[in-house]
């Protein structure tokens, strides 16, 4: 029996220097204005149209085929009340690395190849599984096997049919360490993949657990007839990555490095060609330049543009803003090995000294919510009743004083036993919001007598240092995935190794709840355990959880039927269309 299961986890999408910035969230603007000052927070009022996408919450993980979303797509294509043609120009901040799914790194590559290649299942807006390359699937009696029935009318862009052999081939490459697929762990519990006939394939599992379907389906299917003879170790050097042949709704056309990638409609797509003729990804690294290009119409769509660009874009009536719950949260991690931060009370005081509401109102323009705990509120496992540490500098000062931190030498900085309360706060370059809030936190902590020095570093170096615990405090974010468990970030077994438990967090209570929850197949019981685990973490405050942003995606208004969801902005890109009269190019 595989009931609904709820849990949170996190996967790191290394937000390289080029990656999309975490933007903002929030909706309620409830700060009390300072006396005598007009209450004015720049938001999405006036000019630009605003579509606030309805909020889809995690409904737990279903192992059934959920086809409501697919039916909608089908109906759209059958009714055919749209014009074909038109071009979408997408502005992106960084170039792709390669378009071979199994070796690609970074957000851009993933965005592009997910339009070129199909996966076994698709993710619906409510996070459930819909048909993809597989039209249906079923579990065996003992729940240890999944059989996928593939669509028999899917062709690779070079005309060859996609079959179960391709699925088996992709699975073998994905779990080959020589290929070094970044998500290799997802296939850990799959023992083998068997081709039953050309359009039926079976996955064997070593154990029963909630994420079997997700694990089997993750990863794009690659063409065996092209890559079959390439040794696994050579895959990443293969020119296929520069000139991919997929089976998705769009075909690769051309790629000018650091300039643009062009993909065109796949006329032979098994559910009918998408309305748009072409999608062009334009690489514009500078965010201001990107916003400017959007404004003057050189670019039609930008995902998760920093909110500080809103006042400028807001006046453009040709643009529509889509506000989407982001799959990420931003936090400030304290290194618990540092004597400054070993005391729980001190960490509470630090959290209380940081005015998170103000961060959201100023740099996110209200588009975000205070993050309360380690589980993103979009997920069902998030505990709504976590203890809060509201902004209260006076109480923070008292707490510091109770812990022995006082300003005895009159330099406006707290000290204890002759040691100043001073530390270096790091963050990664290329994320304008984080670069800004670091400076803001620096100023907020100065008010309570804590000296902060900032250091804005390159992401790869910073993460290497974090894993070696070579830091004092850091502002970064996690992108939330729909799978796995809290072990990687919080478990005590990782506390003393080079791991993503940067803070060296270790609490036996948490370990206990976490370890039981991971193995618990019953949804309600698991949720209870996850809630308790979160409470433990929040009480300990190894992180000061800062905010959960909302992404603001801007798109030109000539595009019809645009629907953006937390699971991805391009979820229905194959249905966007442009009225003939509105067509620009």
């Amino acid at each position, binding site marked *: 029996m595989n009931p609904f299961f709820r849990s949170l986890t996190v*996967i*790191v999408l*290394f937000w*390289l*220097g*080029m990656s999309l910035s975490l933007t903002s969230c929030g909706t309620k603007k409830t700060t009390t204005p300072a006396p005598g000052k007009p209450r004015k927070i720049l938001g999405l009022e006036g000019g630009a149209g605003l579509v606030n996408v309805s909020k889809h919450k995690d409904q737990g993980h279903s192992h059934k085929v959920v086809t409501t979303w697919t039916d909608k797509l089908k109906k759209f294509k059958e009714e055919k009340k749209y014009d074909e043609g038109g*071009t979408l*120009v997408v502005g992106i901040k960084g*170039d792709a*690395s*390669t378009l071979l799914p199994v*070796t690609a*790194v970074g957000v851009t590559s993933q965005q592009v190849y997910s339009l070129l290649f199909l996966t076994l299942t698709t993710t619906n807006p409510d996070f459930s599984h819909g048909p993809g390359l597989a039209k249906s699937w079923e579990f065996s009696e003992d729940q240890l096997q999944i059989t996928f029935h593939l669509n028999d009318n899917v062709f690779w862009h070079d005309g060859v049919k996609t079959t179960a052999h391709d699925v088996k081939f992709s699975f073998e490459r994905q779990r080959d*360490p*020589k290929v*070094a697929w*970044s*998500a*290799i*762990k*997802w296939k850990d519990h799959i023992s083998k993949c068997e081709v039953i006939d050309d359009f039926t394939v079976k996955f064997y599992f070593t154990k029963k657990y909630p994420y079997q379907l997700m694990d089997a389906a993750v990863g794009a299917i690659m063409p065996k007839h092209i890559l079959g003879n390439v040794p696994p*170790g050579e895959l*990443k*050097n293969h020119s296929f*990555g*520069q000139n991919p042949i997929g089976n998705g709704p769009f075909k690769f056309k*051309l790629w*000018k*490095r*650091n*300039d*643009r990638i*062009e993909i065109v409609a796949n006329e032979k797509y098994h559910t009918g060609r998408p309305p748009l003729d*072409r999608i*062009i990804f*334009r*690489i*514009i*690294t*500078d965010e201001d*330049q990107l916003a*400017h*290009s959007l*404004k*003057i119409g*050189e670019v039609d769509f930008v995902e998760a543009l920093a909110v500080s660009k809103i006042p400028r874009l807001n006046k453009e009536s040709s643009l529509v803003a889509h506000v989407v719950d982001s799959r990420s949260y931003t936090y400030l991690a304290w290194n618990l090995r540092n004597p400054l931060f070993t005391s729980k009370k001190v960490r509470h005081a630090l959290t209380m000294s940081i005015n998170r509401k103000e961060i959201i109102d100023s740099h996110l323009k209200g588009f975000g919510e205070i993050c309360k705990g380690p589980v993103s509120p979009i997920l069902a496992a998030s505990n709504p009743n976590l203890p809060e540490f509201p902004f209260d500098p006076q109480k923070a000062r008292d707490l510091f004083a109770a812990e022995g931190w006082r300003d005895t030498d009159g330099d406006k900085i707290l000290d204890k036993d002759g040691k100043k309360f001073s530390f270096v706060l790091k963050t990664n*370059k290329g994320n304008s919001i984080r670069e800004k809030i670091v400076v803001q936190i620096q100023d907020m902590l100065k008010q309570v007598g804590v000296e902060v020095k900032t250091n804005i570093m*390159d992401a*790869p*170096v910073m*993460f*290497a*240092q974090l*894993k070696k615990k070579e830091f004092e405090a850091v502002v970064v974010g996690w992108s939330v995935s729909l799978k*796995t468990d809290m072990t*990687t*970030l919080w478990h005590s077994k990782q506390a003393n190794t080079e*791991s*993503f438990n940067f803070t060296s967090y270790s609490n036996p209570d948490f370990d206990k709840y976490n370890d039981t929850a991971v193995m618990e197949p019953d949804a309600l019981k698991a949720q209870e355990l996850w809630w308790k685990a979160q409470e433990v973490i929040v009480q300990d405050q190894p992180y000061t959880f800062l905010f959960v942003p909302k992404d603001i995606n801007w798109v030109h208004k000539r595009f019809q039927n645009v629907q953006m969801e937390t699971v991805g902005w391009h979820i229905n890109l194959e249905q966007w269309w442009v009225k003939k009269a509105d067509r620009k*190019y």
Partner: protein
Amino acid sequence: MLSFILRRLLIAIPILFGLLTVNFFLIRLAPGDPADLYIDKDMDAEVKANIMKSMGLDQPVHIQYTRYLKNVFIDFDFGLSYTKKAPVKDLILEAVPNTIQLSLLALGIQIFLGIMIGIFSAAKQSTWIDGTARVGSLFFYSMPSFYLALVFIFIFAGGVFYIFPSSGMVNPVTYESMSFGEKIWDRIVHIFLPAITLGIGGAAGMSRYMRGELLEVIRQDYIRTARAKGLTETAVLFKHAVKNAIIPIITLIGLSLPVLFSGSVIIESVFAWPGMGRLAVEAAFQRDYPMFLAINLIFGTVVIMGSLIADILYAVADPKVRLS
């Protein structure tokens, strides 16, 4: 002449070799590991080891070094870019023409504007034209290129007027379907702002030199003679003075090539121009060692070639100079 060029080229080899060596060890001394770029928190040690191995980073440094030198100088292979997962040679060959295009046009603008303003300024010495030209050229000479780029975008690319596109090399949407003439025009429109931004600083410097040289020449006896012959002032200026004053300026042309190339580092970022400069910045930020070394080698070559060209041009222009 030929033996001079050959000798200079021979000297260039050890210099490039030294440059490569210094760079190679410089980046390996730096903290941070390029493999960390790819490593996900769920990744095993085995996978990481595989990545390191595929990058050749598991070997001791001296072996990496000799292997690299062998690859570069014997096989002419710069390895595989860590971040772009494609041969560095291909990536650079794709980017170099774009930067050369930009730099050459900027050089043209620089030479033309610089010499013209210089001549004008000298011809109208001590008038308001001269004054404006001198102050103006000093002003542009003292201006950071990124600032000029911003101002140009502000004025010409959508801020005040929308005459030029603000970024890119071609119109990404319609370029492929354009006729040949339209393609050329599209490229001109796109290259105009970056090229002028890149060239204007050099033009300002050059006009200062040109003016100085010209004033020096005008004082010479043969100019006085020419005037005494009854030639018009324009004839004196262009037939006699400019011809002589331009010789030292020619040296500048070779020397400003490397300046333009490094100037592209900033200009290309601002105008989203897909050239070497952007590759260089990305490679440095992302620790893409093979890419970075190759780019440095190319920039080094440009510097050396620049000074060689300067010498040759000087010899060609001034018959008094003998290359030895």
